[in-house]
């Protein structure tokens, strides 16, 4: 069982990111769950979303308290939210930021692996409006359970009817860039 926690602000697409990852994992043959934190949805307010994935059917329906990876979509949350809570010493903290690893450690107290990625900049470079496809790409490569083509197909399934062809292509390019970025790096991963 792999558990992920997403930290974002309302409107940044943490829930969508969790659904994109789950869809890609399901297409790759895994059992999945994706759910947002059950709080009032307010634009700009801190919010969380979660993923579970496993080879076996997932039956539990409680919250994720000890994630394997925590992903932060907005570095202004680092000093505001307990983004590393429950993350074990082997758990990866993946942050969309232009800050360095040491600054993230100081802000969060996390002693395990930290990955800093300017997902906003990388997304923009590919014409994507949000950082979340980049982060899902990076996360998928890190977890190693979803081939890139399944992630791109999942993006097409999720956004095909909602976004223009151009916007979809930009999101797919951003996801591929995030995937390639993380593929070149390997953090300790016991999954």
């Amino acid at each position, binding site marked *: 069982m792999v558990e992920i926690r997403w930290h974002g602000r309302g409107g940044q697409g943490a829930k969508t990111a*969790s*659904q994109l990852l*789950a*869809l890609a994992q*399901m*297409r790759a*043959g895994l*059992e*999945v*769950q*994706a*759910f*947002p*934190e*059950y*709080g*009032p949805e307010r634009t700009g307010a801190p919010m969380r979303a979660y993923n579970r994935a496993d080879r076996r*059917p*997932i*039956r*539990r*329906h*409680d*919250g*994720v*308290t000890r994630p394997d990876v925590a992903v932060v979509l907005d570095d202004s949350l680092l000093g505001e939210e307990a983004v590393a809570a429950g993350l074990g010493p082997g758990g990866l903290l993946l942050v969309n930021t232009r800050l360095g690893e040491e600054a993230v450690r100081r802000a969060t107290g996390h002693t395990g692996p930290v990955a800093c990625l300017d997902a906003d900049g990388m997304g923009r470079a590919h014409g994507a409006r949000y950082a979340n496809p980049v982060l899902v790409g990076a996360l998928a490569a890190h977890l190693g359970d979803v081939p890139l083509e399944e992630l791109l*197909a999942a993006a*097409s*399934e999720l956004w095909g009817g909602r976004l223009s062809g151009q916007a979809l292509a930009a999101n797919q390019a951003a996801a591929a860039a995030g995937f390639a970025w993380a593929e070149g790096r390997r953090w300790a991963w016991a999954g």
Partner: protein
Amino acid sequence: MASDGARSAAVAGADAPAEGRVAARRLLTGAQAAAEAMRQIDPDVVPVYPITPQTPIIEAFARHLAEGRVHGEMVHVESEHSAMSAAVGSALAGARTMTATASQGLAYMVEVLYLAASLRAPIVVAVGNRALSGPINIHGDHSDAMLARDSGAVQLFAENAQEAYDLMLCAPRLCEHPEVRLPALVGQDGFTISHSAEPVALLEDAEAQAFVGPYREEDALLDVDRPLTHGAFAMPDAYFEIKVEQAKALERAEGVWAETAAAYRRLSGRDVAAVEAYRLEGAGRVLVAMGSAAGTAKDVVDELRARGEDVGLLKIRLFRPFPRARIAALLSGATAVGVLDRALSPGGWPPLYAEVAATLAGQVRVQSFVAGLGGRDVGPEEIHALFAALGGAGGQESVYLGLGRGGWR
């Protein structure tokens, strides 16, 4: 690129049921899954009050309607009271009628739900089960359903998004059956299931529609060639008899549900029986639960069984009518039974406990547990604590699990 359906079907094939065909799986929330069942059923009339505390079921169904995938009429009314009133009229006029609600919305429907049951109007209501105010709370528990407990409606509870779809698809066949003809509340835990995305296998549209069949109202309100009175006044010389007839119709729903579940199992390979016995062979200590907590409990039962502990789970899908004989038989070997409620009956025993304790009167010791009120998490810790407490002396009071474990996760 290969079609999404073909690819997902290959995934589902890994653990496909022995009977029934392999279906494509989609990533759906419980609310979307219920709306998919509604799309396939394609009801004639859907009266709704589409603002808070509504469920995303109606949002998803409205999209199906706007994009031409369903063909009925959605009636926007000014309250849930009116939604249920419109539903009664349309069901009795001969239109297949469905709606959805949650929490205070169901509370406001309840007055008319009693009438729907008495008028024998087979309306299917999808419910995202949530707490009742106050204090104001929008999160999951079974308080709303328990307010409707004595309305005369059938009540079903789904464990996950797959069951939310399965139960919704089966509900019309049950409540429109000539032996039953009653409304049904098809519950899924608010947020925990309604807003969580999971893989869900859907039937093909044509086979789902063939399974549900056409709606037939034999005593249609608007049949001018055969005028009838519906909703007549009943004086003390008639009310009692009518209520007992109505109660018997709800009792008959248990047998009809067994037939419906058998037919659905042949079609889908999935079980929607009134109760699910999970590892009850040789189980001394047994937990009885409804809704999403039952899934979490299965993991804990497996864990404790692996340590050699004699635990099991009895999951209730059909709460009204309450399958008393079946439950008594399944728990005949138990040495201690714990009942997990997600609602209170202040000043009395919680509703599920009261049913189980009355069903097992004197047969075995039954302990009441309450957890998960107002969206409080029900995790493995709570289930472990429940089984640990079940070995003890037992008490004359409910045990509250997770009390004091506040704050966001």
